[in-house]
């Protein structure tokens, strides 16, 4: 059985790991820390290739949080317009289905959704919107996650009441629900009789849910996930990597492999090193030259290059750790997913 080591447990690493495992590889995925995809809005702005899209949608369907595709539009948690090609169902509307009137319902004293600001911006791009602050029974510290207020049935009752008192036909709420509680959106709609929408929100539940679904997809496909662990060294022979040293807690293990997929993310998430210029933390691979923010591992045909510029035989790359000469704002997630889909094809040639 061919063995693959995937370094990084963000969008590209997890999707590629699942695809490889489904193709019969024995896959170990190693990653630590919150990946950039978990800080994203959990909506995909760019387009996914047909095969990739189909596969991603089936993973989300199986995890109980189906995605909707096409030309979708939603409102962010500060009220700006957000266009995307893929989102959770309660976050966006299809073209021609824009809400007639919106009440923005934020939590009083919490920054997760600013109701007055968002309503005023929504009015600015042609919606009939008003803001409303939901009274909370407790003090809500700014630093805590809004999902932590809505775990109990009591809190949901309160939420249903508040939604019913809104005058808008559609009610825009903060990102309140974890993946486990995602069914609450349907419950809210059914019980309140309103169309209920989730504000598109970065750095919150939507991104966390997105990565949790991909994790579930990888586990389902048979990937061994080594979360909370970090690859600290690679054992190289010529242009091949034979093994890696992995650290977790006070413990260290070694893992042998036939192929390595670097999907370790950019400098933001401690993937590539940033010391004035971008560097490879393993001091093994070549970085592209002449790029600043779009920099990362130099690559050819999906493979990384050794420091001397020759092509690594069994080391591949996907996502943010790669150099992208024309990196576009907001395209990181679609690029990570498309990369994963494509690199698996390259790896099958090993």
């Amino acid at each position, binding site marked *: 059985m061919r063995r693959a080591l995937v370094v990084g447990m963000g969008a590209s690493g997890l999707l590629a790991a699942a695809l490889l495992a489904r193709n019969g590889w024995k896959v170990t995925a190693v990653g*630590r*820390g*919150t*990946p*950039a995809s*978990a*800080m994203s809005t959990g909506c995909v702005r760019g387009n996914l290739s047909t095969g990739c899209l189909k596969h991603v949608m089936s993973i989300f369907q199986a995890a109980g949080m189906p995605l909707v595709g096409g030309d979708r539009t939603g409102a962010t948690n500060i009220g700006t317009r957000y266009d995307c090609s893929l989102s959770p169902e309660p976050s966006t509307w299809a073209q021609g289905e824009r809400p007639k009137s919106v009440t923005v319902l934020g939590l009083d004293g919490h920054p997760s959704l600013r109701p007055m600001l968002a309503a005023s911006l929504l009015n600015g791009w042609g919606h009939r919107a008003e803001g409303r602050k939901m009274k909370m029974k*407790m*003090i*809500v*510290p700014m*630093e*805590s*996650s809004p*999902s*932590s207020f809505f*775990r*109990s049935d009591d809190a949901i009752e309160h939420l249903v009441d508040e939604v019913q008192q809104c005058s808008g036909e559609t009610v825009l709420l903060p990102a309140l629900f974890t993946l*486990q509680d995602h069914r609450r959106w349907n419950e809210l709609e059914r019980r309140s009789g309103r169309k209920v929408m989730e504000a598109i929100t970065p*750095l*919150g539940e939507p991104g*966390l849910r997105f990565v949790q679904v991909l994790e579930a997809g990888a586990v389902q496909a048979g990937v061994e996930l*080594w*979360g*909370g*662990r*970090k690859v600290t060294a690679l054992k190289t022979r010529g242009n091949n990597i034979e093994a890696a040293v992995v650290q*977790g*807690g*006070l*413990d260290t*293990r070694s893992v042998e492999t036939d192929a390595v997929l670097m999907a370790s993310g950019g400098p*933001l*998430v*401690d993937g590539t090193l940033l010391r004035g210029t971008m560097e490879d933390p393993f001091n093994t691979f070549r970085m592209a030259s002449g790029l600043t923010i779009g920099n990362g591992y130099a690559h050819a045909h999906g493979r990384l290059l050794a420091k001397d510029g020759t092509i690594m035989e069994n080391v591949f790359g996907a996502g943010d750790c790669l150099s992208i000469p024309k990196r576009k704002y907001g395209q990181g997630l679609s690029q990570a997913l498309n990369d994963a889909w494509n690199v698996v094809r390259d790896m099958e040639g090993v």
Partner: protein
Amino acid sequence: MNEGRCIKCGSCMRACPVLNDLEGRSFPGPRTVAVDAPRFPERYSIGTDALMCTMCHACEWACPSSITITRSMAKLREGLVSTAAPLPGHRRMKENVKRFGRTVEGDFEGWKENGKKTLYFPGCIGLGRQPEMVAAVSHLLDSIGIEHDISSKAMCCGSPLLKIGANEEAEELRHRNMMVFSAYDLVITSCPGCTYQLREHYGINVRHLVELLSDRTFTSSAEGRWALQVPCHLKRGLSPWAAEDMVDTLVKAGVDLVRLKEEDSCCGGGGGLLSGFPETSMSMARSKAEVYVRAGVRGVITACPFCSLNLRKAGIEVLDVSQALSWKE
């Protein structure tokens, strides 16, 4: 320390089980306490706030920049002794250590002092509060052929003292314990907090019970469906592999395990929260209990005396891993 790497993403705060508990709202959160305050001391007054952390490592796991938040928190606490008056629960703990050498008093009678080469070190909570768990561990070790002592001379490992700024007392305990340990080749523990302390601060050959079980096959008399309370200090402190091995051992023994997403979130029993802020600790345990009740399990299996203690207080039936397993001859 490496707090300067913070990118302000808030992942640590979304991961914090104290900050996201309804009774933990007065905790300023890991970023304010352990990342910002050490860098900008003129802007923050931390006081006893750092003591509301359970040291569960969840923030550290979530941090994309590999900031060693739990270590920073420990360092802040070391400096607390001169700046803050100790909390009543913490003062009691220190007094107990002074009087009996352990954080809680007990009437444990199962000492085994026969000059064996392996020492079982149950720790304060095991000896003082859960003698039945200590007996189960000892019995399990006997059954797999590990002859061992349980020494009345071994004292508190010092971990709880370091977490409340009592460094000198912890160092004195380490000296006394090292004299006891020097007679043994191996120390076995049943508390992840003790294990972490002995490995990290004593540098001795120490194994948590679950690390000895993975290459053996057991049976289980635990009937019904059980969930897990995966101890923070086992999974995120010591070794995530050890936590996974524990699960495998239980599954192989035939335990009907229900895996829950919340199984590895903190129960509120650690880091001195239980003694220092009992209401917050109890609220966290109750939230976990609700999850387990909703899942319809009979109880939980764990490998930490603090988790056992705290979840039992919240009305959940708890088995230590030693009580869930029997050796198959």
